[in-house]
């Protein structure tokens, strides 16, 4: 924790800021990319959202009070950015969020940056049928392999509630895949 405080101090000090931000970028770009990509699904959108996320992180660093960990704070920004991006994109195309996600999944098959077969597509289609929170929990637990404690810090939900959400999500996905 002291290390993190020191690191945050370096991020705020104009002299060490650039070097510290480079470290932050190299540490978090991959996990945050996966997190965002799992929400927005295609690479170009994930790239946009990831850039915005880091720009926001940089802008709001001076307001970061340290009451949560840097890790969960950044994940929270990334999640909000990705969800806002999705709802804006849906509105722009006159679609519901669900319809937009289905369309994106259909396009995945032709995406150069997607290397999956039927089961991946089916799993994504099953995920779309879930409520937003359950989707998030499932993706963070199953794909990103985050701990419940970490997810709890990011989403501000108790571990018990997260376990229940994950359990519901798994059940619904299994039902969907079995019947489709």
């Amino acid at each position: 924790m002291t290390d993190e405080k020191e690191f945050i101090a370096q991020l705020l000090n104009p002299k060490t800021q650039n070097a510290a931000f480079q470290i932050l970028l190299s540490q978090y770009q991959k996990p945050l990319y996966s997190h965002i990509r799992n929400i927005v699904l295609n690479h170009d959108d994930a790239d946009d959202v990831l850039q915005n996320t880091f720009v926001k992180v940089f802008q709001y660093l001076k307001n970061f009070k340290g009451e949560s960990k840097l890790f969960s704070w950044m994940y929270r920004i990334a999640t909000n950015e990705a969800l806002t991006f999705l709802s804006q994109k849906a509105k722009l195309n006159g679609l519901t969020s669900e319809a937009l996600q289905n369309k994106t999944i259909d396009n995945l098959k032709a995406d150069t940056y997607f290397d999956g077969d039927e089961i991946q597509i089916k799993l994504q289609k099953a995920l779309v049928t879930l409520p937003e929170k359950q989707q998030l929990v499932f993706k963070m637990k199953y794909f990103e392999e985050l701990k419940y404690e970490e997810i709890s810090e990011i989403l501000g939900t108790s571990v018990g509630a997260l376990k229940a959400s994950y359990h519901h999500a798994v059940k619904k996905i299994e039902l969907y895949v079995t019947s489709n």
Partner: protein
Amino acid sequence: METFKLENEPKIKTGFKTPDSYFDDFSAKVLGQINEKEIKVIPIYKRKEVIAMFVAAVIVIALMIPIVNNYTKSKELDEATLETYLSYQSNINQYDLIRELDTKDIEAINKNVVLEQETLEDVLSSSPNIENLISE
């Protein structure tokens, strides 16, 4: 149909890939964007400053209105001060004043001069140099 069980399956990967060397130049891209944003921020900030200065100026002017009003008012002389000045400080004598009177003023004076007979007698009898007045 076989029931699908997630835990019985081998781990399903997302299948998402990134372009080669995407992460190599990602940080440069972000830093470039941050610098661009910082430059863009300046005009908005400046405009805010101008608005702030304008608001401050309006407030100062508003606060000055009562002071200015007071200042101009105090320059206007009230009647009593004017009379005192004319009678004690200036070298205008009553002949100068009389010369300035027009008919209307004279009529006005005439009206004031009309006195009751009794009042007149009282004044005359109480005045010690009535003899002089009569002889004049």
